[in-house]
């Protein structure tokens, strides 16, 4: 028992009703988006992570500045939130850096729900994404597992959340 912590799962927040496990449909395409990584985005990512390298800040063997691979976290999460109002917590993260992302190149990201399961009385959803360049070649792949709530699924859904899963789409 955690002192002060809610014993009910959040039912609604400022963005409306939270998505439930039953509402998440395996196979759903969460959407597609064009995404261009800018200098400002790379600089912010480096600052947040204290991850600095000449390749990120000056130039690289790939003919331009490149982005830290972890910048790829965001577009799939944005696409998840465009479809489902989910807060919860990040649980698993797989990533494949097929090649680096060059600053100002255009990527196309597509994301879909690939699985869902219940474990230890908690509800998990799995979503995967792939990004391609303008030639249609894959730049990165990722798979994520997200737990819908901190609390067990047997906890009633009744509370009102302060933090919404839907955020501004920025780094």
């Amino acid at each position: 028992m955690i002192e002060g912590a809610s014993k009910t799962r959040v039912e609604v927040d400022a963005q409306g009703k939270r998505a439930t496990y039953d509402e998440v449909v395996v196979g759903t395409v969460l959407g597609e988006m064009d995404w261009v990584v800018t200098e400002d985005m790379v600089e912010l990512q480096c600052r947040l992570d204290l991850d600095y390298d000449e390749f990120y800040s000056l130039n690289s063997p790939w003919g331009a500045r490149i982005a830290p691979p972890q910048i790829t976290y965001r577009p799939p999460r944005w696409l998840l939130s465009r479809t489902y109002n989910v807060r919860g917590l990040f649980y698993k993260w797989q990533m494949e850096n097929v090649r680096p992302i060059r600053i100002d190149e255009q990527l196309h990201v597509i994301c879909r729900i690939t699985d869902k399961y219940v474990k230890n009385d908690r509800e998990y959803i799995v979503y995967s994404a792939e990004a391609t360049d303008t030639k249609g070649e894959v730049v990165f792949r990722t798979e994520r597992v997200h737990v819908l709530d901190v609390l067990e699924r047997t906890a009633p859904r009744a509370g009102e959340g302060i933090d919404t899963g839907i955020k501004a789409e920025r780094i």
Partner: protein
Amino acid sequence: MAVAVLKSSVAVGDVLPEIARQFRLEDFKRKDEQTIHTDMAAAQREGLAAPVAIGPQVASLIFRQLREAFGPGWLEGGTCSITFRRPVLVTDFCVARGKVTGTSSEAKGVRVACDVWIENQRGEKVIVGSASGILPQT
């Protein structure tokens, strides 16, 4: 620049560079948003005891470690699979550690497989997983 610390002569059991960071609440603030990462009430509404760190920001210690270990061979051809085992509090001290578990030859060089993890100040493994990168053949 991203020059690999590891060499293709690497052996099973060799350790990866350690990357440590003392987190602070300010590391997770974005404008004036009330989130589970910055606000006690927002965290407790979700059933948490206190604000928790942003997972990818903590995991980035592993990505820095892999960049140092493999250089370009992390940025192109690198893979990583991690599990967030327990929340990291916003004032925790964390250190990324890793060790080599195997090697295999590929067209582009030697793929080196590793176990990677992050420990907090209590020695608890808060993130665990595996990763790989490519080193040039020597």
